[in-house]
Each structure stands twice: as structure tokens, then as C-alpha cells.
């Protein structure tokens, strides 16, 4: 018995039709994965199901009856809960206050104790140690995600729609999330799960719907579609090797770091990056990978010795790092990488404005730089005067890469190169990274995606609790070895 379904639904924004006759049925006790490249129409489907958008044609069916939700909260009252990719939490309120936001317990006086206890019970079920009294602002990003999930659980959902819930979670938290999904499935909840991680789709989903350009191109049951098959269906063409072939790094050291310490975050890290090398850095979220990178480029106070091509350099600010030929691409594209409410040109040249005119900014030169970047990094923008925030995630990432490459750095540190972007763009980014290495530049790639760090790197350093836990290269570069180092497990015990 289908709970919630789309019947021949189309959606049009102005002249552009983004969904064409989509059928989708969510069954109780089933995890239904929705996959597709960015722009395929996944978010539009989620918004229609969650009551945030109306279809232009076709119907939404709840228990077989056509329904029309006037708003998200109205859909929620019917037991349809959406966990958005962007968090929907009030940062200054406590965890418990957020979980009960809009349906607080107590008549006149808020029943704080009841809300706290109920929240604590929910969080315990999720196997986390988050304090119900903590302010959201003080929580890490993965913890906030767990609070979002707890909030959804507390709403007694019949239908749960999840948009990339695992993107920001650590290994252990992903385990807890899967356990909760299994539990909800057993309780008869219908779950729609959107993800870019095909391994997790293969693991979780009972049913898979593949979307391409606003059409359903494939529906399959568990086991009918391999990861390769999913990727092929999404892209619409055969994928050859997903990762570009590795190169031949030179012997000359490009960057030597001795005893780098970022107080409270990174302790005594030494590493050598060779010319033309792609050096991976793996480790759990919170192991100090990002802090190491930010310490290196002067975004955090750090001590230690840094040599670039044999010459010692002092880096106290990002400016110094640029001068030494270093560049850093942040993991936080939306909050630290791009000005989402500014144009493409302003974003591209922001870090290198002194190259575009001494007094008066040379807009023509900036436009020329944008043209070059658009070609070189294949940035697909419908209009060149559009805002950066209106680009798809993949194109934002390409724009950010172009911005970071504008000072022509010799050493590039890329933090999470493909977070939240689609398969097609991922492959492009991998190819760019390899191309940069082939040009004789040296790269450090920080990634939480095991397959990515292995597929892309010539060598992988693993961090744990602010220190280097070890290095793997060649045949030893396996997921198993990296996880062992990251978790601090030694010996051959499986």
C-alpha cells in the first residue's frame, strides 16, 4: 500500500520544465533511493513531496487520494518530514529547544524537563553523546546533522525524506544513521533517500530511482543495479575508469614541512610533498586535517618550519602563502569559498584584485579572466552576469577552483574537492587535479571519501587526533589500512 506517490508530475519554472511526467511511489517499510546528477531534478521532487512546491501538472497522492499541501508544515502535520541538506536549526537555541521547536511541551510554562528528557532519549537512540542543553552554535557540523535527524524522529514521521544526510557525518556517525534507518524501516516508515554516494545507495536502498534531466530513466530493486550501473544510468553514457591514471611524480621536494603545530589542533606534523605529486590526506572528521592545511597557509596561527622548493619561508597570513606559491581551496564552499550573492566575476578575482589595476579596477581584464576560467574549467553558467549562488554545486566548485588557481600557485591544497557534487563533475575535477600535477604543480588533497583519496593520490598520509598516524603508498593504499590508521587500530585483527 503506497503511502505517498507522484503521479505523472511535471514542474515548470517560467519557461523551463525541470520535471517531465515523473512517477514515484514510496512504500511503507522501504528505503527508496533517488539518485541523479546535480540539476537532474532531485531537489524539486523532494520539495514537491514535502509540500514546499506545487506540481505544474500531475498529482501528489497520499494514501491513494490526491492531496494539496499549502505549506511544508501542513505536510509535516500529515507525517511527511523532510531533512534538508542545509540545516534548519536555530543556532542560539539549545538542542532540546530545537527538537521541540513549534510544538513545545507544557501548557503555560514550558516543560523544560520533559523536553530535555525526551531529547536525551532520542539522542541516545542515535548513539550520540550530544548534550540536550548545548547550544546548536557550539556543535560540530556532524553533531548538528544528528540533531536534525533526532528532530525528524521526534515528529513521528510516516514518510521521511532525507537529502544527503551522510555528507557531513563521520564513519561512526554514518553507522548510527544506518542503524536508525534500518529501525525506521522495520517500524514501517517510508524513506526517500537522496545521495551522491553510490556505495551507500547499494547498501541501503530497497528500491532505486535514477533521474536524468528531469525524467525517470531507470527504476530497480535491491541488487538489480551495481554501482557502475547506477553511475552509467545517471550520466547516460558508459563510464570508463572513474579516476584518471596516476602520474609520475618527480623527486625534487616542492614543499617540506617540519614540526608544524597548530595549538590545540595539530601536533608536530612533518611531511614532504614532491613536485608533480598528488598527496592524499585521510583521517576522521576532527582529526586535524583542515586545521593542518589552514595552519600551513597562514589562516591559523602555527609554528614549525616550512620550505618551498628548498627555501625556508615564513607564512603568517594567506598573503604570505600566495607569495610563496601556495594556495588553499576550502572545504566550506558556501561559507568560506564564494560570495553567493555576488557575480561570477567578483568571485573569481576577489583574492587577486591587485592584478587587475593599480587604482581603477580593470573590469575588461576581469571579464577576460572569467572567459578564460570558464573555458579552462568548463564552468557552465546560463548567464555570465548571474550570481554565484545560483550556480549548481558542481559549477560553484569549478568556479572556486578557478579562483584558487588565478594566482598561479605551484602548490595547491584542496580540502574535500568533490563534496556534494554530482558524478559527472567529480570526474572533471579529478581530471583537473591530475592535469595540474602533470604540469609540474604539487597537490595535497584532503578527503573524507576513502575511494576518492585512494583513487586520486600517489601516496596517502593518515591523521589521527592531530598527529600523523602513518603513510600508505602503492599496494598498501587500501581502505582497510587507512581506516586502521585513522581509528588507531594496530595489528592484523580485522
Amino acid at each position: 500500500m503506497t503511502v505517498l506517490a507522484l503521479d505523472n508530475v511535471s514542474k515548470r519554472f517560467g519557461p523551463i520544465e525541470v520535471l517531465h511526467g515523473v512517477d514515484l511511489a514510496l512504500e511503507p517499510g522501504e528505503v527508496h533511493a533517488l539518485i541523479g546528477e546535480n540539476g537532474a531534478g532531485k531537489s524539486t521532487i523532494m520539495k514537491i513531496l514535502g509540500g514546499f512546491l506545487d506540481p505544474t501538472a500531475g498529482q501528489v497522492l497520499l494514501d491513494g487520494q490526491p492531496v494539496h499541501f499549502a505549506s511544508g508544515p501542513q505536510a509535516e502535520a500529515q507525517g511527511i518530514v523532510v531533512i534538508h541538506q542545509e540545516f534548519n536549526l536555530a543556532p542560539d537555541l539549545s538542542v532540546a529547544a530545537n527538537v521541540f521547536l513549534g510544538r513545545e511541551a507544557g501548557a503555560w510554562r514550558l516543560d523544560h524537563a520533559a523536553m530535555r528528557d525526551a531529547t536525551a532519549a532520542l539522542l541516545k537512540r542515535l548513539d550520540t553523546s550530544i548534550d540536550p542543553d548545548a547550544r546548536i552554535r557550539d556543535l560540530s557540523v556532524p553533531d548538528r546533522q544528528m540533531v536534525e535527524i533526532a528532530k525528524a524522529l521526534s515528529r513521528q514521521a510516516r514518510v521521511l525524506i532525507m537529502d544527503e544526510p551522510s555528507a557531513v557525518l563521520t564513519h561512526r556517525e554514518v553507522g548510527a544513521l544506518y542503524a536508525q534507518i534500518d529501525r525506521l524501516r522495520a517500524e514501517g516508515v517510508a524513506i526517500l533517500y537522496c545521495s551522491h554516494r553510490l556505495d551507500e545507495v547499494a547498501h541501503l536502498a530497497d528500491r532505486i530511482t535514477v533521474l536524468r534531466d528531469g525524467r525517470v530513466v531507470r527504476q530497480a530493486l535491491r541488487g538489480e543495479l551495481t554501482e557502475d550501473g547506477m553511475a552509467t544510468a545517471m550520466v547516460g553514457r558508459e563510464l570508463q575508469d572513474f579516476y584518471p591514471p596516476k602520474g609520475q611524480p618527480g623527486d625534487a621536494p616542492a614543499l617540506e614541512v617540519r614540526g608544524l603545530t597548530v595549538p590545540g589542533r595539530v601536533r608536530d606534523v612533518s611531511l614532504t610533498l614532491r613536485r608533480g605529486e598528488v598527496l592524499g590526506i585521510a583521517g576522521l572528521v576532527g582529526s586535524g586535517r583542515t586545521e593542518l592545511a589552514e595552519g600551513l597557509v597562514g589562516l591559523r596561527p602555527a609554528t614549525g618550519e616550512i620550505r618551498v622548493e628548498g627555501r625556508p619561508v615564513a607564512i603568517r597570513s594567506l598573503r604570505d602563502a600566495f607569495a610563496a606559491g601556495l594556495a588553499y581551496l576550502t572545504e566550506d564552499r558556501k561559507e568560506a569559498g564564494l560570495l553567493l550573492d555576488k557575480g561570477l566575476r567578483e568571485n573569481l578575482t576577489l583574492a587577486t584584485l591587485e592584478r587587475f589595476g593599480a587604482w581603477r579596477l580593470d573590469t575588461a581584464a576581469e571579464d577576460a579572466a572569467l572567459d578564460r576560467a570558464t573555458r579552462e574549467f568548463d564552468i557552465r553558467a546560463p548567464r555570465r552576469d548571474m550570481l554565484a549562488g545560483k550556480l549548481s554545486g558542481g559549477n560553484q566548485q569549478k568556479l572556486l577552483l578557478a579562483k584558487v588557481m588565478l594566482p598561479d600557485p605551484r602548490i595547491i591544497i584542496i580540502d574535500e574537492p568533490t563534496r556534494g557534487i554530482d558524478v559527472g563533475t567529480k570526474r572533471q575535477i579529478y581530471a583537473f587535479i591530475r592535469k595540474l600535477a602533470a604540469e609540474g604543480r604539487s597537490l595535497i588533497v584532503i578527503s573524507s571519501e576513502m575511494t576518492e583519496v585512494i583513487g586520486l593520490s600517489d601516496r596517502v598520509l593518515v591523521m589521527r587526533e592531530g598527529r600523523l598516524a602513518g603513510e600508505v603508498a602503492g599496494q598498501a593504499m587500501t581502505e582497510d589500512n587507512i581506516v586502521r590508521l585513522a581509528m588507531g587500530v594496530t595489528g592484523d585483527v580485522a
Partner: protein
Amino acid sequence: MKIDLHTLGPLVALVALVILGAALNSAFLAPANITNVLARSAFIGLIAVGMTFVITAGGLDLSVGSMAAFLAGIAIIAMNAALPGMGSNWGTILLGMGVAVLGGIAAGYLNGALVTKAGIEPFIVTLGTMGIFRSLVTWLADGGTLSLDYGLRTLYRPVYYGGIGWITWPIIVFALIAFLGEWAMRHSRFGRHVEAIGSNDRVARYSAIDVNRVRLLTYVLLGVLVGLAVVLYVPRLGSASGSTGVLWELEAIAAVIIGGTALKGGRGRVWGTVVGVLILSLIDNILNLADLVSPYLNGAIQGVIIVLAVVLQREKRTADER
């Protein structure tokens, strides 16, 4: 070139006001009246141009009215004190001008340093310095009025009342600063950095912009412009007291907002600010010339205009989004 009604709104309102003013009273378009309106706009105008940069960078300065009173006070005291030694000449007046501008730099630096180096909210910092400057000038005047020496006042007068033809010096200075400000916001690295910081200061920091230095500079720039406004204001009345420049900060902020600069920062329009200043002074002028509405209702009408301006400029939501 795309025509953007959000951007042109204030300009349309200004043109409408001019037409209304001309229709209500024939004296409105007389050169003397226009000179008067523009010259009076110059004080708030200079300050509002500086305020545009502060607000665009995500800051706020409530202290400018009190700062103007304080700077006028110390400039008058300095000139009166130098009079016996230096005599009644332009040297003494230049000294007073120097005191006003240097004092403006120091006061702006104080505000900026408290915001950036001590990391205190701009609202709190400038609420504090607003009280301090106001209290200092009242204390210096001993609760009364600080008056410039009569001879010096006569010598200094043409700086406000004189000019080239009917275009007086305040109008010339205001036009020049407005032009430079607009140019700096649109075409200079500084302006781009100011907008970037107001839009998202973390992105700015990760783009190798010295965020604190740029923020500090916006407050110093505003201080300089307050000093310049004082240089033009002192010859008008030749005095300063505890009630000089009261509510100037709110008028300046209102002009910035009417002009289309976002109060949360990130988008600055200096020419819009100029239009905003002119709208506010024209309303005042028209009410004084026409008998239609009591001039006592000036504040109410300005209030309506401010709210209306923000409502009209609000980003249009996507019709589909709920």
C-alpha cells in the same frame, strides 16, 4: 543595459518630489532655494557617504552626530586659543580645520579599533562613543555654547556662504566627495573589499583580504568625512553646543538605507545615498514652503519614506517558493 526598478526607485521618488515641489510653490525652483537645500544637505551628505562604506562592510556608526558636535567644539576652542598668538587670519582657521579633520581621524580610529581589535559589536561600541562625545562637548561648553571669536567668524563665513556663483563651497565639496565615493565603491579594490566583507567576511578572509584593516579604514574614512562636515558647518553658525548635530546619525543612516544600501552589508550604493540625502532635505523644504501639511509632521513623513523604501527594495521572493 538592464533597467532595474529596485535601483531606480529612489531616483524616481526624487524626481517626483522635485515636480511636486515646483507645482506647490513657484519659489521652490528659485536658485536661492536650491542653493539653500543643497548646502544644508552637505553636512548629512558627507557623513552619509562615509556611513555607506561602514554599513556596506557590515558595520554601523551611531556616534557621528555627537562626534560632529565634539569636533566642532574642539575646533572652536583651538581657534580661540590660537587667536592671541597667531592673530585673526587664515592660519588660525586652517589650524581649526586641521583639528577637526585630525580629530575625526582619531575618533574614527577609536571606533574602528574597538570594533576590530577588541571585537565588540559596532552597535555597542558606537552607542558608547556617542554618549562619550556628546558628554565631552557639553562639558567643554560647560552646559552652554562654545562661540568662535567674532573676527574669526567673519573671516570664516565665506566657506559656508561663498562659492563659485550661486554654487556654494559645501555643494562643491559634497559633489566632489560623492563622486569620489561612488568611484571608490565601484571601481577601486577598497570598494570591492568592503562589499566582499559585508557580504561574507569569512569568504573575504579566505581570499587573503585583511578584513580588520579594511573595516578599520571604513571607520577612519567616516571620521575624516565627519571632520570635513564640521569644517563646513562651523562657519554657518560659528558655535557648537551640546545640542549640535543631534540625530544626525539617524538621518545619515536613513539616507543610506533609502538609497538602496543593504543594512546587513554587502551591497553599497553611494549615488543612492546622495539621492537619499536629497529626498530627506526636499521633504523638509517642501513642507516649509507649502501650507499643505504642517512642518511638524516632517518626521512622520520621513519615517514613512524610510519604511516604504525598504519595503520596495526588498528582494522579490520567487513566486513559487513558500
